[in-house]
Structure formats: structure tokens, C-alpha cells
């Protein structure tokens, strides 16, 4: 699986080029019938089959930053792209633009913070990126307004089968799709690597209209809060219990036939799975479901602790079970 390589790439929503180029390169060696890059930058790979038209989708983009201002002192102000909790930002490393200029997210030093401010969470507006420039002119020589920045974070395997990396949401889905493409299926398969999911599932809208599928399965990274001190009923998903099957989230109520088929193939092939324990969040499934005259959709996801941070943590077991479930689902169509 190419998860290490995929998580190392920069692909903030709207600037997925590195990820797209990498995937296109890897697809070249695989048996496919057609590969399309559409106007939104989605990659759509067709593997022809006689069965129903089935779309599987994962998004290439990740949360990150857009450089919005260079101050007179040479610091960078930024906007977040996608949902990022300000609590995870302070003192983290980032890489900016194509040249991957290193920077550090800074804020006012603790000894200068007055009263309540010391206890409050950082406000994104008060943060800046320090690239070590001495002046505005020097900063402008390295960074342009509109450059995207990503977390600078290595892929590390640690502990009991755990992986730590940035952008596990949703490079884990991309890695699974690349594995899926290595095998043959009876269904008329469309594998879509989508763009701009983190800013409102925008790429998927266009991809779904083109594919016009009968069924769709979205493969995602999802929130996981199986750790102290969450109360039992606040724990959304758990590590090492297999992929999460969603019944309902903020973007869609999943199709009963698809959910039933997922559970059925999982049980028959002894694949471990869990049900999502919240209805919050959204995925490409919402856009795909309401494209054209309607598509029967489902979502399976790998639980990721500390999602949307430089150090998301997933379990290798969940990833391999997720791949098994996706394959078994696709092979159930004939």
C-alpha cells in the first residue's frame, strides 16, 4: 500500500496537483479502460464490466492553509482551508507552496498573554506563520499571496500497529482505491479520486454527474475519539474494530440496500466492522447521492484519531479490513 508516499504529498483543497500526478503515474501500470481528469481536477478511472455501474470514491485533498497576507515584519497571515481546530496549530511546522518553504505557526508568547487569554484557546486570527524572514521583501522572495501550505509531518509507524501521519483523511482512501484497481471485478467500475471535499464535497458533485452510477461507495477517514476522557456515548468510533459503516451523517442517510450489502459481505467473509456512533460530519456521499436522478450510496471509513491535525493516527488492522470490505463489496455485484 502506498500510504507513506501519499501522505507525504501536499494537496490542500483546490491544489491537489502533487497527489493527482502521483496517482496518475501509479495508474499507468494498472489495467484500466479509460482515465479522465475533469474540469475540477477529479481523476475518474473506468474498468469496464457487465454488471451494474458502481462508483467508488476517495478524496485527494487535505485541510491546510492559504497565505493571505505578508506583514511588514515578514510574517505570513493565513486562512484555513477546511475545518481545523485552532488548538492543534500553535508551534506546528508547515511547508508553503511548490518550493516547500518551511515555516512555524506562531502566536504571542505565553508571558505576554494577559489574564483570561492565557486560559483561552488560540484564536486563528492571532496566529501567523514565521518563515524566518527578516523583512517583507525577503518573505516576498520566497512566498506569494495565494500559496497553499500543509502540515510538515512524517509518516511514522509506532506502537501496536499504529500509523501517524498528516492527511490520513483521505489519503487512506486514495491508497485503498489504488489497491482496488489492481484486481478485476464484474461490475462496471468507476474509481474516482475527488477534489475539494474538505470545502464542501465540490469535486464529487461534478464527478458524480459524469459517472451517473447506480451505486456508490465512499471510502474515508473518520473521526475517532476512543480515548480518555470522552464519555462512553461520546466515542464516535474505535481503533482496531475494523472499518466504520455509516448509517446516517450530516450529508446523507445511506441507502439501505448498500448498507445491508456491506454488512452482509462483511459477515460472510468474517471482516470486522463497526457502526458510526454519531450523525455529525459529511462526505462525498451526499453530493453523489443527489446527483442526476439519484444514486444509492454508502460510506466506509478508517477511524483516525486526531483527524485534521499534523498527527492523525490510524490502525493498520482497520486499514486492511477496510480494503477487504471494499473489495468484497465490489465483488458482490455480478
Amino acid at each position, binding site marked *: 500500500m502506498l500510504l507513506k508516499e501519499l501522505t507525504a504529498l501536499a494537496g490542500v483543497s483546490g491544489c491537489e496537483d502533487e497527489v493527482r500526478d502521483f496517482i496518475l503515474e501509479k495508474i499507468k501500470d494498472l489495467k484500466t479502460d479509460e482515465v479522465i481528469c475533469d474540469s475540477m481536477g477529479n481523476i475518474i478511472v473506468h474498468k469496464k464490466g457487465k454488471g451494474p455501474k458502481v462508483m467508488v470514491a476517495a478524496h485527494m485533498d487535505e485541510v491546510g492553509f492559504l497565505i493571505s497576507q505578508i506583514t511588514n515584519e515578514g510574517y505570513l497571515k493565513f486562512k484555513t482551508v477546511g475545518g481545523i481546530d485552532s488548538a492543534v496549530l500553535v508551534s506546528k511546522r508547515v511547508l508553503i507552496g511548490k518550493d516547500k518553504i518551511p515555516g512555524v505557526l506562531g502566536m504571542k508568547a505565553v508571558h505576554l498573554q494577559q489574564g483570561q487569554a492565557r486560559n483561552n484557546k488560540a484564536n486563528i486570527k492571532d496566529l501567523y506563520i514565521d518563515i524566518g524572514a527578516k523583512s517583507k521583501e525577503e518573505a516576498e522572495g520566497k512566498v506569494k499571496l495565494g500559496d497553499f501550505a500543509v502540515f510538515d509531518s512524517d509518516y511514522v509507524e509506532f506502537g501496536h500497529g499504529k500509523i501517524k501521519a498528516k492527511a490520513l483523511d483521505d489519503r487512506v482512501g486514495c491508497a485503498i482505491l489504488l489497491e482496488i484497481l489492481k484486481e478485476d471485478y464484474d461490475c462496471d467500475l468507476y474509481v474516482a479520486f475527488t477534489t475539494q471535499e474538505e470545502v464542501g464535497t465540490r469535486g464529487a458533485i461534478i464527478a458524480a454527474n459524469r459517472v451517473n452510477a447506480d451505486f456508490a461507495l465512499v471510502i474515508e477517514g473518520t473521526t475517532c475519539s476512543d480515548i480518555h476522557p470522552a464519555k462512553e456515548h461520546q466515542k464516535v468510533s474505535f481503533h482496531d474494530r475494523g472499518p466504520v459503516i455509516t448509517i446516517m451523517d450530516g450529508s446523507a442517510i445511506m441507502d439501505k440496500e448498500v448498507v445491508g450489502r456491506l454488512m452482509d459481505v462483511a459477515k460472510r467473509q468474517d471482516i470486522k466492522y463497526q457502526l458510526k*456512533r454519531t450523525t455529525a460530519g459529511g462526505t462525498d456521499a451526499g453530493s453523489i447521492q443527489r446527483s442526476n436522478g*439519484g444514486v444509492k450510496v454508502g460510506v466506509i471509513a478508517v477511524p483516525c484519531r486526531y483527524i485534521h491535525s499534523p498527527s492523525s493516527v490510524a490502525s493498520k488492522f482497520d486499514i486492511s479490513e477496510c480494503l477487504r470490505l471494499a473489495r468484497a463489496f465490489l465483488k458482490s455485484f455480478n
Partner: protein
Amino acid sequence: MELLKKLCLANGTSGEEENIRDIIIEEVKDYVDEYKTDPLGNLICVKKGTGGGKKIMYAAHMDEIGVIVTVIDDKGFLRFSNIGGINPYNMVHRKVRFKNGTVGVVSFDADTKMGELNLSKMFIDIGAKSKEEAEKYVQIGDSASLVSEFVDLNNHVSCKAMDDRAGCYCLIEAVKKNLRTENDIYYVFTTQEELGLRGATTAGFNVDPDFAIAIDVTRTGDIPEAKRMAVMMDNGVCIKIKDDGIISHPYVVNYMKECAKKDNIKYQLEVLEGGRTDSGAIHLTRSGVKAGVISIPSRYIHSPSETVSKKDLEECIKLIVATEKYQFKEAF
């Protein structure tokens, strides 16, 4: 009112509209030329025209608000989330019923300050002693409807799910008039309206109509200290001008008014602040659809006691029928 009562008391939260769809199919199948269900579960019934007319789509949504189980705890209590807009205070110590008949009482963590109530502090008690026992009756992802009684309040009737079974009822009654006009009529009973007009989005694409009219409930401004709104109960059916999802097409508004005047139908004009209907989605499908809304004034929406006026329902049925018969002029 027996049909309305049957529709309201049947359970069909968003995504679980099968019961409602089955009742409607049974009621309308002898009057329409064909019917089908699309991938989102919308029921699309067609009455072909005699030719030379337009394609008109009517939409009433089958789904109702409810709750969905997210977690079953060790003691057998169910944690839940909302399906559609639910005020937590409306839920306190209400009962909900699951599809298999299991009933639960909704309550809240005992240490909750009432001013800070929200759904994450609430649970459903189905009388189970343990997680294992609860799981015999309910699974994660199961949804439940409010338990309510259908009551006759003289001028009014009140029950859960009047939003939008009242609309379904009026549309079914219109179907039963068994009109054959020059227009192709698509009677569509949609799904998942309460979650953002989702069924109507694909139904609109599938039908591809010339005109669309949603039939749904709207609020009124006539209860004590109500937010200012011109719509009153018993004052007739509403022709909607605007809500958060649509500005009704002026052509549609005008022809509905013309129909109402011609057939002596009591109507009022409606501007709704806060709220949307299926027309909001349908008018943006494909390259756009001229759309409007016929609304039924309703009190206490999204509670177990949604209330509508019997007279307004009659006017609503009359206005649907009048618009079906309309002979569209060439230019508009």
C-alpha cells in the same frame, strides 16, 4: 379525515418512508396511469394528459422528523441524534416508537441544567436492564417517530407528522378526483425533505417538469405573542411568495391566483421567514423549473401536536385541482 389520521399515525422518519409510500400507493394506484419509485425512494405517479398541455409536478413529502439511535450504553439506555429540526425541550419525557413497535421514554442526564439542555445530554429509556437486552429490540441506526394521538379540535385537527402528511393527504384527495386534463400531471411523494429537500432534488431531475408546485405546511402568526406573520389559521390555503429556499416564479403565483379567483377558493399570500420546501430544490434542477408552493397554515410545527384547519385543507385540495385543469397560454 380518516385517511389523514391514518397517514399521520403511520411512522416514516426521513429515509424510512416505506410505510407511508405503501399507504399512498394503495390509495392512488387505481387513479394514475403509472407509478414508480426512484433511487431515493420518491414515489412518482403519472396521469397522462390528453395532449397539448404542460408537464406539472406536484410534490408533497412523506417523511417526518424523528430520532436515530447512535449508541446503546451498558445499562441499556439509548443515546440518539435528531432527524430533522428538533427542539430538545419538545422531546423531554415524550415517547418515541421504533419500527418494530418498541416504545421508549425520552429523558435527560439528571445533572443537566435545564437552560443547557441539548440532545447529547438526552437518552431514550426502553425499559431494558442491560445493553444485551436493549440490543434485542433496537440497533444503532434505528430511527423512531414521536408517539402522538390524532385529535379533533372542532375547527382543527392535531397530530404528529401533519408536516407533511397534510400535504400528502390533499394531494391524494386531488388524485382521487380522477381528472384527465390536457396537462401531464406528476404527483410526486418525496423523501428526506426534513434533511434538506434531498428526495425532491433527484425527483425534480427525474420528472423534468415545466412547472412544479410543492404542497407543504407553513407557520402562522396567530398564536399569543407569535412572531409577526400575515398567515392565519382558517383563512384559506396559502399561495407562497417567498421562503428561505425559493422566490416563487411570478407566472406560477399569478396562475395560482387566477385559478383561486375563478373557482372561488379562499386563499392568502404567504411570505415565510425561516423554512424551506421541496420547490426550493426542484426549481434549481437541470436548467431551472418555474415553481411555486401551496401551503397549509399550521401551528406547533415539529412537535407531537402539529395542528391544521379542516377548512384550509378543503381549500388546499380545491386549489390543487384548479391548477391541474389550467390551460396554459403559449407565451409567458
